[in-house]
């Protein structure tokens, strides 16, 4: 019995393929990937993982020796097709959970989690509408699951990613994005660095604005679907700029994260 897991009744004779009650499970850390100085990916072995869709998240729960528990949500970074489940976590210095997950956790450690969770901010490769992804900081994580899902399924859906980071050092998945964007299968990646740019930087160097979206976004007549994920001000700013540009609100899906996410 997992500590803290709810005790089900009479579930033994029911099919287990579509569990309705969300249960806490134990995953073990198979691999740690330091993505940036403040961000790490935890690659987890989770027995009986039911599978997930790109864009979903898991809840992670830590229990202190005195029984105190802290729960946080983290987006799944891995594609549904990947063998292992990966989450990517940004370390927030005053957070209760992230400083443990980025800095303390070691390969082989156990992590308590439940999921997958979410049915709104989800993209499936069977959706062939042109895809616009807009990320701020670690808001790239669920969008990366979509990009990885797209690559794993061989989808040719025209896809554009606009990714805002503070500096080049803060760009998560930089090498993998470069590689996927050079495959010539319809994915383009545009970066904007808002605080510090390296010498000779040819990308954008400012916060996302109308002119930038006008260059990167699909013409609204192509009926694109949009996913925006990042800090609340970025998400709301981008969504309202897109609506001003004539995008239908129903075609824009948003996910905010904030300081309570630590």
């Amino acid at each position, binding site marked *: 019995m997992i500590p803290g897991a709810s005790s089900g009744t009479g579930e033994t004779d029911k099919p287990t393929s579509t569990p309705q009650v969300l249960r806490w499970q134990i995953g073990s850390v198979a691999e740690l990937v330091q993505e940036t100085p403040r961000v790490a990916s935890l690659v987890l072995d989770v027995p009986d993982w039911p599978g997930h869709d790109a864009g979903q998240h898991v809840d992670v729960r830590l229990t202190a020796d005195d029984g105190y528990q802290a729960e946080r949500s983290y987006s799944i970074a891995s594609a549904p097709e990947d063998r292992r489940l990966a989450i990517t976590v940004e370390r927030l210095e005053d957070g209760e959970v992230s400083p443990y997950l980025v800095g303390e956790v070691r390969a082989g450690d156990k992590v308590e989690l439940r999921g997958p969770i979410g049915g*709104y901010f989800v993209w499936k490769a069977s959706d062939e509408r042109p895809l616009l992804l807009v990320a701020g900081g670690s808001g790239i994580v669920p969008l990366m699951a979509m990009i990885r899902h797209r690559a794993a399924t061989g989808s040719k859906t025209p896809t554009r990613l606009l990714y805002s980071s503070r500096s080049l050092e803060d760009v998560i998945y930089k090498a993998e994005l470069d590689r996927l964007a050079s495959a010539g299968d319809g994915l383009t990646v545009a970066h904007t660095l808002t605080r510090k740019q390296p010498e000779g930087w040819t990308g954008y160097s400012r916060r996302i604005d109308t002119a930038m979206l006008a260059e990167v976004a699909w013409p609204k007549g192509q009926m694109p679907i949009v996913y925006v994920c990042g800090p609340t001000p970025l998400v709301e700013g981008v969504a309202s700029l897109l609506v001003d540009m004539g995008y239908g609100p129903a075609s824009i899906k948003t996910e905010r994260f904030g300081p309570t996410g630590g």
Partner: protein
Amino acid sequence: MTVQQSDLKLDGNAIGGLLREIFTMEMTAAIGTCAHCGTLHAVGEVEVYMNAPGVVVRCPSCGEVQMKVVRGHGKYWLDLSGVRCLEFSAG
């Protein structure tokens, strides 16, 4: 640095796990009708504040409170008085 209330705003995606505990099914794609202004929004779209003793859900159109959820001492307190109707898949 002063934390503004607006900085603490999240959305319904953040309470997908909490709502699964209560409703046992995926709820972020559920469509709620605001009891105040009548606008329809997916639960994933609503404004969520988690810094109160419980969770406060507000309508993204009119800003009024739709839902309050408090969990503690082995109980839930669920106030849905700001949601006229919740429509969601049977599974």
